[in-house]
Every structure is written in structure tokens, then in C-alpha cells.
């Protein structure tokens, strides 16, 4: 009850011109930062921190949190329109969003990604407000053994990715895992496959690698197939936007995605990207037409974007209850609060509850603002899909190069992007699917490091000693075996 009063009070105080303006600015900048490959949500928010010095702490928080939320959505725009995820967590959005756009259904894909983001955002924040206490205790029960098993569960989703090519799918995933072994080993500090090159000490930077694998490889493949004489006008003349009924049909997908995103988001060692993979997998298993995933299923887009935006609320759970940021962007938010002499953590509820309620209220209102601005913006973004391909492809190429450079202002990353673009093109050409590779890259380090930590702590049987870990492993085994058994049964019947 006290929460509700505090929340309403804070929401009321945001309902005037200045806070709403600040909130809208944050949302617009967030969408732009998210949409630009190379500017991650955390980098975007950090760039804006100096502008908040002059604001009072509540306004600063309103501005930055709106930006955080919007940036997580912004990544989906480029993922859908040009297959270039603006943020790592938008990779999965591209799996179905881009095929939809290619089929002239960009309007639907953009609409679904926006609405799913808003639903996810709202659910995440409601969970944050209501259950942050017990959820934080759950987060602390996650030891390295559990993190390892969660990573295994994430990897088990490749079983449903393969379709006909289980072998090629497995090879692709293993390649992803192997790529993760490059760099300084973070347990003992031994350098692996770095050949003394300082740029390789931390392995390959994630964003350039992703842009190369997804966007560049697509450009190469398309250019190869492209018939310059025949294709003059690309894309449909008129965009179709989904109706309310269309969204209503996706409500369960969005809700499932939101819950998965929030829960996975609370674990500081997991993150939004893993949440989107798990959510996508669940949606595929629930679906009656799993074979159409990857070809342009709105449920796939909803699963990815819902989970990704819900993780914002999730990542704030450990920040507000334990003083531990749940994501890179939450860490920046914490830094900003500290500059304003506010220490995030459980004492914040006692010392300055108005700040906490302002944060909650501004995130809720930011979702509404995001919906309005996003709907208006989508009318603009969709024009990208109408650009003629001979103009669009060179632009995507240039965009990929700039985006890769922007991450660290380093030419090395541009080379990484090019290299992975070529690798992605070759793999595609020979029928090796790319999603398992991306999954391997996302989860490889998490699996390896946590397994080693667990074994150091409790010996070789560490992962079987903790009930949480065993439960996750059992789910992983089932999720791996069931699609295989089903496939065999189907074969026998045929």
C-alpha cells in the first residue's frame, strides 16, 4: 500500500512539462543509441551522464532510466530493417524480424517488436516493484554451478535450431564455443591463441563479430544472388501495419517472453542476450509451426523483444536490493547515481525512498512514451526497406564498418567485422546455420568460467552437488532430447 502511494506520488510529480520533456528526450536518445550498431545501451547512457551533472538527482535518474529502457528497444529497429542488430540482445530479433522485412512485412515486424518491448518493459518493472526482495535472494543462490547449468540449458536450445541439419548445427555451435577460447583465460591469466597481440587479450569484441556474422554475410550473399538488371524497385509500395487484434493474438508469446526476460535478467552473470535465446526457444517449442521460425514468425520477434526489454526491470532488482548491477547499463546507472551522491542498494529505500519511487514511475511512464514515439518513428524506419538494394547494400556495408569502429575507435574491430563477415558468408553458402554459432559465442565464456569456478570450489562433481544446478541440467537434457526423439518418431511413422 505504502508502495502504491509512493509510486502514485512520484508519478504525479512527473506529470508536468519539464519531467515529461526530459523523459521524452531520454527516450528519443535511447532509441537512437540502441539503433546505432557500435553504440551499446551502456555506452549511450554513459555518454549522457555528464549532461546530468546540472540536473537534480531525480531528473537525472528519469532521463537516464528512460534512455536505458529505450536503448534496449532501439536495437531491434536495425535488426529488423537491415539485419544489423544495434545491440547484442537484438540478435534474436533479427532471426525472424529480418525475414519478415524481406517478405515485405517490415511494418508487422516493427510493430510487434515495439509492442512486445513495451509489454516486456512494463511486466519487468511490475515484477521489480512487487517482488524485488525475494528475487534478489534467488539471485544470490545462483553459484557458479548454477550459472554453468544455465549456460548448458541455453546451449541445449540448439537442438531445436537444427531442423534437418543437426550435424551442421552442432558444428556451428562448437565453432562458436571455440572462438570463445581465444584471449586471456580469466581464471589463471594464461594467454590462449593471442600470439602476443594485445587486441586479442580479451578475445574478439562482441558487436563487430555480430555485425560481421549477420549483416555483412547477408550483404555478401545477397550481392551474389542479386540481378542488377531485373530488380529496380525493391520492397512493397505500401506498408501494412498490424491491427490491435493482431497484437492480441500474440499476447501469450509476449507474456511468456516478459517473464523469462525478467527472471533471467536478475542474475548478474547472465543477461538479456541469453534471455532472448531461451525465450525464443520456448516460443518455438510451444508453437504449432516450429519449422517456420527463422522464416519470419511474428512470435519469434515478440519472444526476443519481450524478453530483452523485460530484462531491464530484472537487471534493476539486484541493483536496488543488493547494490550489485544486473547488467552493464545498470552499472552505468549506478555510477551516475554515485556521482549524485546516492548509493544504490537496500539503504536507498530507507534514505531516499522518493528516488526509488521516481525510478519506478519514470520507467513505467517511459514505456508509454516509448510506445507513442516508437509508433511515430516506425513510420520513418520502414522507409529503409524501400531503399533500392543497389543503394542499400553499400550503405549497410558502410554502416557495419562505422559501427564496428565506434565500439572502441579501433581499426582492429573493423578487421574483425570483415573477417567474420567472410566467415559468415562461407558458412551460409555451405548450409551451416549461423544462430548456433552466435549462441556458442554468447554462452561459451559463461559456461567455461563458471564450470572452472565450480570445480575449484567443490571438486569435479560440483555441478551435481547443488539442487538448483541439477534441476537446470535435467531441464537441459530434456530440452535437448525431446526434439531428437520426436524427429525419430516422425521418421519411423513416415
Amino acid at each position, binding site marked *: 500500500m505504502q508502495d502504491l502511494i509512493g509510486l502514485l506520488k512520484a508519478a504525479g510529480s512527473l506529470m508536468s512539462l519539464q519531467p515529461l520533456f526530459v523523459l521524452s528526450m531520454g527516450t528519443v536518445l535511447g532509441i537512437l543509441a540502441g539503433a546505432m550498431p557500435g553504440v551499446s545501451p*551502456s*555506452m549511450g*547512457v*554513459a*555518454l549522457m*551522464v*555528464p549532461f546530468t*551533472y546540472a540536473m537534480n538527482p531525480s531528473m537525472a535518474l528519469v532521463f537516464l532510466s528512460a534512455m536505458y529502457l529505450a536503448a534496449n528497444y532501439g536495437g531491434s529497429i536495425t535488426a529488423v530493417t537491415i539485419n544489423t542488430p544495434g545491440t547484442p540482445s537484438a540478435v534474436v530479433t533479427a532471426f525472424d524480424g529480418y525475414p519478415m522485412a524481406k517478405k515485405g512485412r517490415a511494418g508487422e515486424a516493427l510493430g510487434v517488436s515495439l509492442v512486445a518491448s513495451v509489454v516486456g518493459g512494463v511486466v519487468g518493472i511490475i515484477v521489480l516493484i512487487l517482488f524485488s526482495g525475494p528475487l534478489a535472494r534467488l*539471485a*544470490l*543462490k*545462483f*553459484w*557458479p554451478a548454477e550459472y554453468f547449468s544455465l549456460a548448458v540449458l541455453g546451449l541445449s536450445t540448439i537442438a531445436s535450431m537444427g531442423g534437418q541439419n543437426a550435424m551442421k548445427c552442432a558444428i556451428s555451435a562448437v565453432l562458436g564455443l571455440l572462438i570463445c577460447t581465444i584471449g*586471456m583465460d*580469466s*581464471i*589463471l*591469466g594464461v*594467454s590462449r591463441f593471442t600470439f602476443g597481440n*594485445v*587486441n586479442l*587479450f*580479451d578475445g574478439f569484441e562482441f558487436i563487430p563479430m555480430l555485425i560481421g556474422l549477420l549483416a555483412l554475410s547477408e550483404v555478401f550473399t545477397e550481392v551474389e544472388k542479386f540481378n542488377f538488371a531485373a530488380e529496380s524497385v525493391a520492397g512493397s509500395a505500401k506498408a501494412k501495419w498490424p491491427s490491435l487484434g493482431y497484437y492480441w493474438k500474440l499476447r501469450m508469446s509476449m507474456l511468456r517472453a516478459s517473464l523469462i526476460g525478467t527472471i533471467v535478467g536478475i542474475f*548478474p*552473470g547472465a543477461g538479456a542476450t541469453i534471455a532472448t535465446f531461451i525465450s525464443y526457444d520456448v516460443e518455438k517449442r510451444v508453437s504449432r509451426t516450429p519449422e517456420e521460425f527463422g522464416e519470419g514468425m511474428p512470435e519469434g520477434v515478440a519472444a526476443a523483444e519481450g524478453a530483452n526489454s523485460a530484462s531491464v526491470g530484472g537487471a534493476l532488482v*539486484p541493483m536496488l536490493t*543488493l*547494490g*550489485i*548491477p544486473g547488467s*552493464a547499463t545498470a*552499472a*552505468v*546507472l*549506478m*555510477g*551516475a547515481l*554515485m*556521482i549524485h*551522491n546516492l*548509493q*544504490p*542498494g*537496500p*539503504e*536507498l529505500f530507507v534514505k531516499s525512498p522518493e528516488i526509488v519511487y521516481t525510478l519506478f514511475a519514470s520507467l513505467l511512464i517511459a514505456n508509454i512514451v516509448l510506445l507513442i514515439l516508437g509508433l511515430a518513428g516506425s513510420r520513418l524506419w520502414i522507409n529503409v526497406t524501400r531503399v533500392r538494394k543497389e543503394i542499400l547494400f553499400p550503405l549497410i556495408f558502410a554502416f557495419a564498418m562505422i559501427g564496428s569502429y565506434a565500439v*572502441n*575507435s*579501433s581499426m582492429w574491430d573493423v578487421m574483425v567485422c570483415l573477417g567474420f563477415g567472410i566467415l559468415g558468408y562461407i558458412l551460409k553458402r555451405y548450409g551451416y546455420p549461423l544462430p548456433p554459432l552466435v549462441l556458442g559465442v554468447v554462452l561459451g565464456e559463461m559456461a567455461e*568460467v563458471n564450470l572452472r*569456478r565450480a570445480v*575449484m*570450489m567443490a571438486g569435479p562433481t560440483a555441478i551435481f552437488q547443488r539442487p538448483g544446478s541439477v534441476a537446470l541440467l535435467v531441464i537441459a537434457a530434456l530440452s535437448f532430447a525431446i526434439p531428437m526423439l520426436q524427429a525419430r518418431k516422425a521418421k519411423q511413422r513416415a
Partner: protein
Amino acid sequence: MNNNRVRMLFVTLAAVLILSFAAGAAAKNPFPSKPIRIINYVAPGGLMDVTTRKFTDVASKYTDAVFVVENRTGAGGLIGAEYVLGQPADGYTIFAPTTSVVVQVVATGSDVDKYIWGFDWVSMLMKDPECIISNVKLPIHDWADIVKDAKAKGGDQIWVGPSTGGNDHLMAMKVWDKAGISAMWIPFESGPKAMAALMGGQGVAYVGNPADTTGRPDLIVCAVSSDERLPQYPDAPTFKELGVPDLDDEIMWRGFSVKKGTPPEAVAWLQDLVEKVANDPEWKTFFEEQAIEVVAYRTDEFTGIVKKNVEDAEKYFKQFGIIK
């Protein structure tokens, strides 16, 4: 006619001379005449990132110079160091390292002459005492119990902290050595993640700085490396009180360095600015609330401290088998 031509020549020559003097004067404009970039080795939101951004904010009271803070992360600071070394030594690119960068250079077996002595260590900003942090919710949380438990477990006691071969790992080795115990170091991706591990009871101790306990009520400082108890943490005993010798001045510093060969006037300008900022009440209270001592050490004193860091790191990393 002839006279006229001579006069023309004279006027032209004079004009050329005046112009070139003017240009020379412009080139000798006092430092700085363009924006100064501070290169951070941590991601946005990291400790040194917050520090440099706060510095530029406070410094704007004392100078019109424009600062741009850039984050070039990776390889424990080597990427940032490498970048600064690749820029001209003109004072317009400043590196913002902490003890961790120096220690990491040694731990990774990288070139000390290049990554450490390729810099002039011009300004040390602050001293943050190192400390051992424990979790009051766990049965073992005061220093005596930690020592007893470590001896009973014979090397299997778990300490958590940030990266292997970082400053906190080095501190842990020193403590084990001086207290005559042995334990296991389990590294995490970041300080906060390691603290979450301590809160969840995965280990008994975390190595960090006193301010790490702020806003985290379960965590307490159970031993601190300083001469006397810190006024901000009156309940935290010093190593000396606990009977552990030679651990009275283990710190994490934060500072500025520039590429070797930077002109002295640029260095002096920065050092003067640091002094002004160090005396600023806003700057002072911001850090002193976190039990950090604000200083403005110049090249000699700072270089001495860096030298000691290198020697310590080489000694302990060899002793514990991190480097050969």
C-alpha cells in the same frame, strides 16, 4: 621609380616578418590550445571512469580547457595504454590508470619498459586503502575466525575478488604471506559480481576498498591496511592491531600519466590543475566520504610508488606461480 620598388620590397618584407612573428606567437600560445583527451581503461560507470568524469566536472571551475573523456577498454588497461603511447607526446592525450594497470602489466608478462616506463607518472590523485571485506551473515566473518578457518582448511578456504593478477589479487597474496595462511582465489568478471558471490556465501572474504561496503549492509570491513583506524570506518581494525605486520600502507591509487617526452609546460599545467582540484571542497568531500585520501603527488613521489608496485607484483606473482 626605383625608390618606389625598394620601398615596396621593404614593406613586403616587413609585413612578412610581422606575420611570421604573429604566427610564432600563436604557436607559442600557453598550453592548452585545443581539447585535452583523458583516456580511461575502464568501461563507462567503472571507478576510474566516475573519477575522471568527476575530475573534469570540478576542473571546469578552474580552467576553460575542454576535456573529453574516452573509454578504451580491454586487456586490463593495456589497450588504453597502447593507444596513448601511439599518440603524440604533446600533453593533449592523458592516460588515467590505477594501480591495477601497473600490476596487470606484470601479471600478463607484458613489456614493463614499454607499458609502464613508456609513461611519465605525473599526477597521483588519491590513495584508497586496501581492505578485507567479509559477510556478517556468514558464521565466519571476523579476522581471527578467518585465520582459524584458513588454517583448518589448509589452502581450501575461498577468497573472491576481481580478475586474476589484478591489484586485489596481489593484496590477497601479500595478506596470505604476512598472516601465514593459504587460501584459494576465485576471480569474477568484476568487483560487484565477486561481492555478490560473497553475499551468497560462496567464499569468506573479498579483497577491495572500504567504500565497497557502502550501500551493502551485509558486508563489513574486517581488516584494513592503514596506519590507524579510518574515521569513516571506526569499527574496522587495522592489520597492525590484528597482529599482521607490514601491511600499513597498501593502497589502490588513481592518477594521471602521459607519454614520455611530453613538454614540461604541459606537465606543469596538469599538475597545477590537479593541485587546485585536490583542494576543492566538492572533490575532497566526494572522496573522503568513501575513506579515500585525496592527494596531489607529483612525478617523483608517484614514480617511486609505481616502482614499488612493479617490484611487489614481480615478487609475489613469482612466489605464487602466476609468472615465471
